[in-house]
């Protein structure tokens, strides 16, 4: 089985300052990392590799520095790493570039990508890529297993989960926090930089033209950006049922309900 895990380098939100007045992000002192849900996707791919014979190819599209996310993926256990070096594009073109890369990578069984990207929370690349590849997709995956040429996934809904199946090849978008990504071991980190290879392609290698891409870029119109409202923290009441109900009643009475 061949699994393509797509990784995007993004700013670590913890290091980005949000301007509440302007609703914009200040990234001047920010540090970059693997987009969290992409990392969850890679972990899901590596778990599949652990349970059956599979090859995991980490794929990233971005500036040359994005190579770091691929080195980290190699350290975590990816078998191969491919960087498509190019300037950032909007989501529809990013999906196009990735679909072309997929063509060059050959036959695959699964494509795994994070559901959302950190920062602005965009989530179109996965679904668009599935359309371009002409494969079924399961979004917001929490867990996946493959058997008999099918992917069986637990997919998150606003309330609860749906258990879905799709014939392979298929594309999955994995929810942030779906799993706990493994640590790259320390020997693997050093080896990822000193011994492993990252294959680099340009958009031209994929039969695309940077000028045409740039021309078509920016068609996504940003209507508005705003800071998410801070939600009140929930409270989990634990203990035995009788006690928990008593506490809950106390809370409700306290609020005059």
């Amino acid at each position: 089985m061949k699994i393509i895990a797509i990784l995007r380098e993004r700013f670590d939100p913890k290091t980005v300052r949000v301007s509440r007045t302007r609703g914009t992000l200040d990234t001047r002192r920010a540090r970059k990392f693997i987009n969290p849900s992409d990392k969850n996707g890679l972990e899901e791919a590596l778990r599949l590799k652990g349970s059956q014979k599979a090859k995991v190819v980490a794929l990233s599209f971005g500036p040359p520095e994005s190579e770091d996310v691929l080195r980290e993926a190699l350290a975590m256990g990816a078998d191969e790493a491919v960087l498509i070096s190019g300037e950032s594009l909007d989501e529809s073109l990013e999906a196009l570039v990735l679909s072309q890369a997929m063509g060059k990578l050959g036959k695959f069984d699964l494509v795994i990508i994070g559901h959302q990207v950190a920062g602005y929370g965009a989530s179109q690349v996965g679904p668009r890529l599935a359309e371009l590849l002409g494969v079924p997709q399961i979004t917001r995956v929490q867990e996946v297993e493959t058997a008999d040429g099918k992917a069986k996934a637990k997919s998150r809904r606003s309330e609860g989960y749906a258990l879905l199946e799709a014939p392979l090849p298929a594309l999955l978008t994995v929810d942030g926090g779906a799993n706990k990504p493994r640590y790259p071991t320390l020997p693997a980190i050093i080896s990822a930089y000193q011994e492993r290879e990252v294959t680099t392609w340009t958009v031209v290698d994929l039969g695309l033209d940077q000028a045409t891409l740039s021309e078509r870029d920016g068609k996504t119109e940003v209507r508005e950006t705003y800071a998410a409202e801070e939600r009140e923290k929930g409270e989990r009441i634990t203990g035995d049922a009788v006690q928990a109900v008593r506490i809950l009643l106390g809370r409700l009475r306290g609020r005059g309900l």
Partner: protein
Amino acid sequence: MDFELSKEHQLLQRAVREFAEAEIAPLSAQIEEKKEIPRNLIEKMAEFGLFGVPFAREYGGAGAGEMGYCLMMEEIGKVSSSVAALLGAHIGIGSMAIYLDGTEEQKRKYLVPLARGEKIAAFALTESGAGSDAASIQLSAVRDGNHYVLNGSKIWITNGPIADVIGLFAVTDKALGARGGVTAFIVEKGFSGFSIGTIDEKMGIQGSSTGELVFEDCRVPVDNVLGQFGAGFITAMKALDIGRMGLGAASLGGAEAALQKSLEYAKYREQFGRPIAHKQAIQFMIADMATEIEALRSLVYRTAWMADTGQEFRRLADICKLFGSEVASRAADRAVQIHGGMGYMRDYFVERMYRDARIGEIFEGTNEIQRIVIATDLFRELGVRIRP
């Protein structure tokens, strides 16, 4: 001049930080209370690769060099001095002695499982009559056919009670003393005649296991002589160079944690209607801590860089240990002061840190010995031979 860490060291630093925060920090209170590092944590640490950071990958290490070792010790030092002590004794001195002076066979047999964390190492030099005056050790080794027979005891040995492999220093020629009369041996815990004596109760680093090692006609094969016969003191000093640098790195981490806790507390604690962060008395302590931390960081990283580039770094390693341990103690002391009554409460992080920091000024050579060694080395350049 380039102060940027290599990409691999940056990733190693981040990975160790994440591991330390997620896997070690939540257990630090339990480690303190139970006075031991849980076995399953040691297994996780081994799997992650913490036990062999500086050693070459062909010997089961990470191949991250001394810079990688120091970055690791710094991150571990932030969350648990007990775990830092375990790793410092295991890597910096215990396994390091075998890495530096072991034969190829000894490295295959002993270093590989040590670097993988399958076995734990200790370094045994101190005796009841020989601490700072390390050349006065009494534990004797006498040849008997294909073995040496060891008699005597070692005290206050970090990791001693839990170690599988011990780098041990014994007298093989009393007349020659430190100059040719001390030999290093690799001792396995299963060797006949070897036993654990008193297990020590300490002021701090409660999770670190420290104790007495007793040798009664303990038979060690001649193949387990480490380094050249009679040159054990040189082996000990070379390993201690790395150990002291790593101790400086762990101290750096401890001091950084003290500063971080102090910043958080000063931001939150209100007196006279405002957070105490607004008081200059607090600001001055914070600024002094930050200043010393930055000086220490530059010192430790530069020393590691010199070690990795094959330059002479002994004096700097001694300075790392001396300055680092004192910076950590001062930072812990200030952190307690900033926290006020809270800082004095048992089982609160800074109270533990204050007790933990104290040992840094004592083990791996007291700070008084470090000062003498540093001064002796400086005077030697002027042709003055300082006598003890």
